[in-house]
């Protein structure tokens, strides 16, 4: 059944794919973290003419499958390279989720904090920057970490638009060497080895913030 030789042969390809996976996840998550915050702020504090369409667009993206969005972008925006496009679609898709996460973090800042800002006459911008957002972001660090892990595990979807990430590499190796079991098992193990410590870190962070 298990062919140790094939597994060893598959390892370089799988690891190369892992590099691509990481290279896609990190910038995509950066896009999601920043854009998610912008989306949350526009919906919460922006002018109505902007807040309403942004909310509608975010709901639309959140309610349609990432796979479909990848295909659609692939067809509609041929000018961009697949990896760049993949990172953007992944980032925008997750930004719509993170905007909801930020929203709960903002809602969790007690009303008394806002009232203290009013009593001190702090300007609106300063209220957000110095008082509300630092507390809101601290509130949501654990869920943000969980979304990072979750995004990392969804990067194989990028293979449908020809991004050669880890699962794509495993699949290619499997089909050329008839060693699917070995190559996919390796890919799964690498995912586990990367995700698990991250989840542990997130949980630690959660415990530390609880105090």
């Amino acid at each position, binding site marked *: 059944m298990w062919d140790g030789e094939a597994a060893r042969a598959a390892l370089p390809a799988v690891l190369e794919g892992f590099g691509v996976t990481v290279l896609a996840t990190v910038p995509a998550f950066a896009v999601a973290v920043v854009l998610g915050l912008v989306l949350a702020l526009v919906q919460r504090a922006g002018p109505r003419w902007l807040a309403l369409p942004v909310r509608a667009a975010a709901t639309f993206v959140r309610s349609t499958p990432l796979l479909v969005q990848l295909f659609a972008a692939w067809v509609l925006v041929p000018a961009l390279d697949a990896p760049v496009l993949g990172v953007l679609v992944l980032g925008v898709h997750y930004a719509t989720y993170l905007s909801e996460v930020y929203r709960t973090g903002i809602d969790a800042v007690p009303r008394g904090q806002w009232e203290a800002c009013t*009593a001190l006459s702090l300007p609106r911008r300063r209220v957000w920057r110095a008082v509300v957002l630092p507390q809101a972001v601290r509130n949501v660090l654990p869920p943000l970490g969980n979304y990072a892990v979750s995004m990392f595990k969804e990067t194989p979807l990028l293979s449908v638009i020809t991004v050669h990430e880890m699962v794509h590499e495993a699949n290619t190796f499997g089909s050329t060497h008839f060693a699917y079991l070995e190559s996919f098992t390796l890919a799964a193990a690498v995912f586990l080895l990367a995700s698990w410590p991250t989840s542990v870190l997130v949980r630690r962070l959660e415990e530390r913030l609880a105090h």
Partner: protein
Amino acid sequence: MPTEDRKDPAAPAVRFERVTKRFGDHTVLDGLDLEVGRGERVTLIGPSGSGKTTILRLLMTLERVTDGLVLVDGQPYSHMPRGAGGKLVPADERHLAVLRRRIGMVFQQFNLFPHMSVLENVVEAPVHVLGEGREEARRRARDLLDLVGLGDKAEARPTRLSGGQQQRVAIARALAMRPEILLLDEVTSALDPELVAEVLDVLRDIARNTDITLLCVTHEMGFARDVSDRILMFDRGRIVESGPAGELLESPTHARTRAFLGSVR
């Protein structure tokens, strides 16, 4: 037209003209008239839900009036003049931003910023509202922390402090804005009994050594007697009795006041 700071020196610090505040069907204040002189210390007493705290919250613009007019230093505050006729319309944020700076507030729940140090709490508004230099603001903040007896806690996080200490930081933070009017909203109600005295002592000091206008809502009758020029007894959104502190506490004329004072002693 931008709001200008046009203080009328002869006007009372605060004036409510037939102010009504409703929350849904519930009327909290019912056509209230009220004047507080400059430098006067006024304490509002009465059963909970009688509208005392709402008066402070209207002054801090945490609530808006349903009807009537609030003036500060003779200038319309809840409303602003618009157009050639000077017709009064509800104030917008820019109007409030100018006049609100004269007023500071200390809350029952302190409402300190938990992610900032004690010193940063006190420095925040002077730097970002008054435009003070950071060094100047820090120096003044340290003086204020000394004043409230917390000079050694400047670098601490508020959550590390006792309730009484947190409330004293909140007092220093409010004073850092150099308010002309200070609102104290049940500032000792959330404190353990043994911590009440340290907060009231600080406030007595401030009352004695400044000419700040004070509006307090409190159930501490001893404190009310010590600092107030005048006490107002509230019931169901109306003033049922008012008078000099000693007089009202010693010989209340209204049955409602007698019953209330009997219940808090």
